[in-house]
């Protein structure tokens, strides 16, 4: 199976799983939705095992740049979001004093930990890749 056929199969499987999920929602059946997801995953795994997927360098470069851009946008956004959600709570502004928006503090904490987690993963992966690609050696 080539790459093009694999993509067509993937679209079909996603459509199939979507239909099953819609039916399971209407019938409120957890079992049906689980069965649909598991079946879809099995089909995809089987199709992938029969496919020779080749990723050329341009595709790799595009994915790297897209991941970089996603991180560059997402990490500061949730960091700033966390700050904006936590600061008013701790500064005692009247809008939060009544306790109506108490959940916002929890949301801010989740965002803050998520931002820290992202930064930690970036730092670890950078360190690992820097070593892998020969960085950090003593100058000869």
């Amino acid at each position, binding site marked *: 199976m080539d790459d093009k056929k694999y993509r067509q199969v993937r679209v079909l499987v996603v459509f199939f799983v979507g239909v099953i999920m819609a039916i399971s929602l209407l019938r409120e059946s957890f079992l049906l939705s689980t069965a649909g997801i598991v079946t879809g995953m099995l089909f995809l795994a089987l199709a992938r095992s029969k496919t020779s997927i*080749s990723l*050329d*360098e*341009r*595709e790799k*470069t595009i994915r790297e740049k897209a991941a970089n851009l996603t991180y560059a946008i997402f990490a500061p956004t949730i960091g700033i979001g966390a700050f904006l959600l936590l600061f008013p709570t701790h500064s005692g502004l009247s809008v939060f004093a009544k306790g109506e928006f108490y959940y916002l503090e929890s949301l801010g904490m989740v965002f803050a930990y998520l931002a820290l987690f992202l930064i930690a993963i970036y730092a670890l992966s950078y360190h690992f890749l820097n070593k892998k690609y020969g960085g950090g050696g003593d100058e000869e």
Partner: protein
Amino acid sequence: MEVAVMKNKQNLSYDDENLSFRNKLKVFRAMHELTQEQLAEKIGVSRQTVNAIEADKYLPSLGLAFKIAKLFKVKIEEVFVCRGGTDES
């Protein structure tokens, strides 16, 4: 000599803004009577990558550039031309 700056279009790893890159891939491909699809298959990339290289929208890696030069049995400098920089000879 007019120097074109293409740093926003290509996968450049150079900081020198005066470098410009051109390639004669389309010429060599025509000389060998290959379609983009056929060339892509021979060098192990997608047709879109060959198209992007010919349109000067993507700068191939060193390995790929050598593969292309080897396929056409020419030197790499005959396919890929770099102009500008500080040591232009």
